[in-house]
């Protein structure tokens, strides 16, 4: 086996293990409904959501101000998307990848040939940072802390997201997130996301959304 092939296998194994350590819903979980409470830049509002894996979140919250609606929609869908089942073979497992730094050590950097220029930083077998190009921006997501979801899996708890100009690397904005999850039967579901977002001109926005009164048609495996 040549060294480039070895590197590919090492990268694939390391990234698979790191993905497997991220908590995702079991395949039988069809989603949940909940009440959502938002304290955003435009004030306080309350509504309901219907969240299903692999689907846009159905949000019924007419009173939410326009200044907060896109943020709320994006955050809900982000939290649901990251919990939805996704086999490694259907995600990063489809692509060629290279271990570009730190092979075999405590830290590793893996480049994935997915057309988005994705890179993963792994630390002690867990994903500590993800970077990819979306449109004209380079987006970096740094996982600052984690919370246990099962004996072998975690959910990210403190996250920092950087948006930089894709050409110059200049910082455009950053967002500090803190997430909480709660059990619903045998699954863990989003309960809260707090956000502090700072733009390049210094403008800062604090927002929080809470999900309460979760309900699911089926909450534990038969």
């Amino acid at each position, binding site marked *: 086996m040549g060294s480039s092939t070895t590197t590919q296998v090492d990268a694939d194994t390391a990234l698979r293990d790191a993905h497997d350590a991220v908590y995702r819903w079991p395949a039988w979980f069809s989603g949940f409904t909940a009440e959502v409470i938002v304290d955003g830049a435009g004030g306080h509002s309350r509504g309901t959501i219907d969240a299903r894996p692999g*689907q846009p979140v159905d949000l019924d919250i007419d009173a939410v101000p326009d200044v907060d609606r896109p943020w709320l929609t994006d955050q809900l869908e982000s939290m649901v998307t990251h919990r939805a089942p996704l086999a490694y073979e259907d995600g990063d497992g489809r692509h060629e990848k290279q271990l570009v730094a730190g092979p075999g050590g405590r830290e590793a950097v893996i480049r994935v040939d*997915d057309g988005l220029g994705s890179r993963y930083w792994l630390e002690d077998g867990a994903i500590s940072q993800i970077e990819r190009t979306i449109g*004209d921006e380079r987006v970096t997501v740094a996982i600052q802390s984690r919370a246990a979801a099962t004996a072998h899996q975690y959910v990210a708890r403190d996250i920092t997201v950087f948006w930089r100009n894709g050409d110059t690397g200049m910082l455009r904005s950053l967002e500090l997130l803190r997430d909480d999850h709660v059990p619903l039967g045998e699954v863990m579901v989003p309960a809260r996301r707090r956000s502090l977002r700072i733009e390049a001109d210094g403008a800062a926005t604090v927002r929080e959304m809470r999900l309460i009164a979760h309900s699911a048609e089926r909450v534990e495996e038969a």
Partner: protein
Amino acid sequence: MRANAHRAAEPPVELWERESTRPRSLATAMLASVDAGKLTCEALEAASPLMRAMTRSQIARAHAIVRSHVLARRSLARQELSRRLVDRSPE
């Protein structure tokens, strides 16, 4: 959200018509991926050449179109299911 169903069922034509060419093109490509049964990550990767040099706002607006279409379809499917159940009712 059930009370919202009648609004979601209306095709989001206004959202589409007031949008500029690039977000429309991106939304069209992403909807094609959704129709082809692709997962979110696959749809994003398939659309990456179109996204090149697009702004965060343009991409967000394309996502809004896709989201509206998918939710409208889901609502229509619910209504169709309800109609069939009523049709099959012995009453």
